[in-house]
């Protein structure tokens, strides 16, 4: 008979629950809680209210005419802002990697500034302040929101692009140079294509953020033809007894845009992980 209390023989015979059994019980408990919450919620819910307040057929019907236009405007504002953000972000990324100190400081200060303030303030400033201060009349809503959200986006994009370019191992450039490629050829044929793959998922996520941020455009006062999804949805709230139907509808439309983009970003991330 072993006397050491920690000997393997004693440990094995000491009665206790196996980790597997423990995990099973814990999982069952979690399912149980979930089921109870769902049942209670379904019982407590007023189903008629749900139908009239969130999926009101009359409200939906009244929105259908204007919906395609609003959808198109949301896309237009997004693409415009993304184009500005990408171009400016690229310039800022190159500035960040410049050997000239002031360029680096400027780019860093820019990024810090625009990442540190709410996008909403930038939209208001571009929409109202700039025209007043500089006497410039921005031609239309697409340009206004494109510039405002583009300025904000560039701060994030510049960081993404810089990180992407620097994530390409130095050996890749050295191999290219040792084969006789010039610095710019190595950049174009070896670094940029590889960096592009690295930055594509984060850029797609940035596109999703911009899509949602285009809703700020309503702050600038929109003509009917300039309505985008959020404005359309919130307008529909005013309809008597329609409840939240307006925002439910446009919320679903936003998801039609953003869910596939998110899915795409994740798929590209997985593919990149395999290639490395």
């Amino acid at each position, binding site marked *: 008979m072993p006397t050491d209390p920690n000997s393997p023989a004693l440990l094995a015979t000491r009665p206790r629950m196996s980790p597997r059994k423990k995990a099973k019980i814990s999982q069952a408990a979690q399912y149980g809680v979930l089921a109870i919450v769902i049942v209670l919620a379904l019982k407590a819910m007023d189903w008629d209210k749900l139908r009239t307040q969130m999926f009101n057929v009359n409200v939906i019907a009244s929105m259908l005419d204007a919906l395609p236009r609003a959808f198109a405007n949301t896309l237009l504002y997004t693409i415009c802002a993304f184009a500005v953000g990408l171009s400016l972000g690229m310039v800022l990324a190159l500035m960040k990697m410049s050997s000239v100190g002031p360029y680096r400081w400027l780019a860093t200060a820019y990024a810090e500034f625009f990442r540190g303030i709410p996008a909403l303030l930038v939209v208001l400033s571009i929409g109202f302040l700039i025209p007043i201060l500089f006497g410039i009349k921005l031609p239309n809503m697409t340009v206004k929101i494109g510039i405002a959200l583009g300025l904000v986006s560039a701060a994030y994009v510049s960081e993404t692009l810089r990180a992407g370019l620097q994530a390409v191992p130095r050996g890749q450039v050295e191999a290219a140079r040792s*084969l*006789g*490629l010039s610095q710019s050829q190595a950049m174009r044929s070896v670094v940029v294509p590889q960096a592009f793959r690295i930055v594509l998922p984060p850029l797609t996520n940035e596109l999703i953020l911009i899509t949602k941020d285009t809703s700020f455009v309503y702050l600038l006062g929109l003509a009917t033809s300039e309505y985008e999804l959020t404005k359309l949805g919130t307008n529909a709230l005013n309809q008597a007894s329609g409840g939240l139907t307006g925002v439910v509808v446009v919320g679903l439309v936003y998801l039609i845009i953003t869910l596939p983009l998110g899915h795409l970003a994740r798929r590209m991330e997985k593919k990149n992980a395999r290639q490395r």
Partner: protein
Amino acid sequence: MSGVSPTTPTDPPVVQISGLYKSFGTVDVLKGIDLTVREREVVCVIGPSGSGKSTLLRCVNLLERPTQGVVELLGIDVTDPDVDIDRVRTHVGMVFQSFNLFAHHTVMGNLILAQRKVLKRSKAEAEEVAWANLRQVGLEDRATFYPAELSGGQQQRAAIARALSMNPALMLFDEPTSALDPELVGDVLAVMRDLALGGMTMLVVTHEMAFARDVSDRVVFMDDGVIVEEGPAAQVIGSPSTDRARIFLKRVLDPTHIDDSEIGETEPDEPAD
């Protein structure tokens, strides 16, 4: 046990290094190197870690700029600021310890990229050259694979084929087998041996003493930024005349040393007390 391609002093030099100094900031890495490699010659560089072997190689194709001294490649002084270094580099192939195949291209893509961009060869011509070199390194069946889909040994052989596709006059190898699993080293060394037999001029940094002994015409022992010993492999490896070389070679060749390192690797698995 002399080299496979006996050269004579009259063979034209491919590389001629004289009075080469290189420092990084305040750190002097190369302190006056003189070295000549003649056509068809295979020169192996050995020496302890940090002695400046890689730096020497990288100064030859100007991946590093020499601080002082002259590097003549095919009679051209490459340290001259007016030299078109991209042009010169096409004549020098380099093989890295970490392969450095272009990750976004297939093996074939890797082999034709510089041929197309630098030598302006047609796609058909570049591919023909590529196939010939893939055959030489035994990788015809891997042309459509991406680097990540290859073993280390296959990647290194592809990297050698890529360098060869530029028809270089000189091949630089920087510890080409150091990153490989032991069972894959042989394939790469076999390819290098074939190259040497074919008359390629080679400057090889390696820790593979058997390769240095059997294939090289000359062995250079470097330590602390200078060439300490230089001569036929049998002499430098077999009976070194300096203490520094003797100590280094004892560490590399002594089988008990190898045993020590193997025990060292398994140590963490054993109880620490």
